[in-house]
């Protein structure tokens, strides 16, 4: 006989076994392995033997000093920022437009579907499509510029470093603003509608309602978007790799592309790639942890403030009632 309440608990463990096993084998072990390789002399294709370096941090030092790595880190952060700021601003603007009760916008379903569409298309396809659109000498962008009379002869647009970087940023922006917008809209729909009704009764304009109610209530979702986008951005690989292979002149080289090039091409520097991976791992962990801490701190501080306010107003009310009683 099974005794209720006692024997069932073990199924919690049993049903978690597949997840835990798969996690240990395919994620934890590779992570530890990567960490170990970062401290060794392991390089070259087809080799499996390695030993620890005498100067145990040599790989880390050489990666940090490597100008390509420094550049790739700068590129990654730069291209992410240039994509993220317009992305979040446009998403907020569209959210404000689409969630405004007084100004019903028709065709929202269609716009959502179309704005989100680039997000599900294979990044490899998008990268090559854009490099084809900007191709030299015969690409649609060149054709367009010529027929509009801006240029007389086709120009090799992608040799321009700023433009190449800008296009990578634009692709990220273009792929992700629809996603961010949908997340924000669902966040607004989750806000207590009474808040908006009360604001309307108090005579607040749409703009005031947006800045005083919508934005503060979206803060958690915005943070979530920021963290996931930052982590995704720091791992940017498919688009910069297939758009111009990190070029021209390393202008679109990202940290992930750097790691890939170190480990899986050229001289197969597995140890350097591992060291670079670990450095990125630390950067990413610090970024997401900091953001969450700031968020929780602010939330906690706000809660305390609200509590104090509440207590104060309660005391005030008490005093007033007493005075009235007199």
């Amino acid at each position, binding site marked *: 006989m099974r005794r209720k309440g006692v024997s*069932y608990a073990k*199924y919690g463990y049993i*049903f*978690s076994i597949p997840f835990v096993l798969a*996690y240990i084998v395919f994620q934890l072990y590779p992570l530890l392995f990567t960490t170990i390789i970062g401290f060794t002399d392991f390089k070259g294709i087809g080799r499996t033997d390695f030993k620890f370096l005498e100067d145990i941090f040599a790989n880390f030092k050489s990666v940090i000093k490597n100008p390509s790595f420094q550049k790739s880190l700068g590129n990654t952060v730069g291209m992410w920022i240039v994509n993220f700021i317009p992305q979040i601003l446009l998403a907020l603007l569209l959210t404000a437009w689409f969630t405004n009760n007084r100004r019903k916008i028709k065709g929202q*379903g269609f716009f959502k579907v179309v704005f989100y569409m680039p997000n599900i*298309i294979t990044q490899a396809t998008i990268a090559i499509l854009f490099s084809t659109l900007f191709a030299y000498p015969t690409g649609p962008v060149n054709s367009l510029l010529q027929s509009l009379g801006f240029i007389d002869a086709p120009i090799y647009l992608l040799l321009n470093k700023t433009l190449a970087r800008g296009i990578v940023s634009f692709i990220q922006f273009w792929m992700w603003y629809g996603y961010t917008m949908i997340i924000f809209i669902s966040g607004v729909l989750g806000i207590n509608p009474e808040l908006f009704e009360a604001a309307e009764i108090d005579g607040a304009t*749409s703009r005031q309602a947006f800045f005083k109610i919508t934005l503060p209530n979206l803060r958690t979702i915005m943070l979530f978007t920021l963290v996931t986008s930052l982590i995704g951005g720091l791992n940017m690989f498919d688009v910069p790799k297939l758009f111009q292979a990190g070029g021209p002149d390393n202008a679109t080289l990202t940290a992930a592309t750097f790691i890939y090039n170190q480990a899986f091409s050229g001289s197969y520097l597995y140890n350097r790639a591992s060291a670079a991976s670990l450095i990125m791992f630390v950067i990413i962990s610090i970024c997401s942890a900091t953001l969450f801490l700031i968020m929780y701190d602010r939330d906690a501080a706000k809660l305390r403030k609200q509590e104090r306010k509440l207590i104060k107003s309660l005391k005030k009310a008490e005093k007033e009632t007493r005075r009235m009683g007199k």
Partner: protein
Amino acid sequence: MRHETTIPQKIYKVIIYVSCILLAILSIIPFYIMIVNATRGTYEIQSNAISLIPSKFLSSNYKVFEGKSFNPFVGFYNSFIISTGATVLSVYFSSLTAYALVAYNWKLRQAFFTFIMAVMMVPGQLLSVGFYQFMYRIGWTNSYLPLILPAIAAPMTVFFMRQYLIGTLSLDIVNSGRIDGAGEFHIFNRIILPIMKPAIATQAIFAFVASWNNYFMPSILLTNKSKYTMPIMISQLKGDIYKTEYGAVYLGLTLTVLPLFLVYFALSKYIIAGVALGGVKE
């Protein structure tokens, strides 16, 4: 109530519609040019690379691929097997893990959930060197297994499944199953999985698309041309062979996008709803 005057209000509304239509065009135009150019000859594209009217060189563009490394059908087949395998494993085992987290009261439950939350953000690319070396040692390069089996541990999917189960699971159903003498595993397969169908459908779409679009890991592991997945096939279009075959490149890109378009426009309602669900996860 303070109403804004009506005329600026109307202008504002026009601005909104015009902006939205422009953004919609921005989403569509690159793909439209791609599809039209897939039907145009290299000479046509050379004289003007933008055209809104299709031409008649589709089949001659397709002939360019014969005997070369880009084979969209092999890519489609391989990607289909890998994505299907990964999707099935991901939704099944994520549901099982979520059920373990919701239905049973065990000591490490909270700790396990915290752990899943913590590793949700760890990007897989950063362990690529260790992962590759591990697979190389056990002879699993050029195998589909390292691209399918890791899907068993999908923290993000577990998280969503757990959210869904908390909202829908009633322990009465589980207990009535127990009274009927059904084993716990049987209850999960026969009673819980059907309850979770809506969540499974949504998560399956996202798992499938993510696996289908994955380029990094397959490009490291698969060196045998007959094993190439769709994104690796796409990357072949960057090769020198196609440098002057403009029409063929557009056609190749189109062939890789078409299946995604079909799936997206058939399921867009569920996909958009699924994305929106991701936002209310506070």
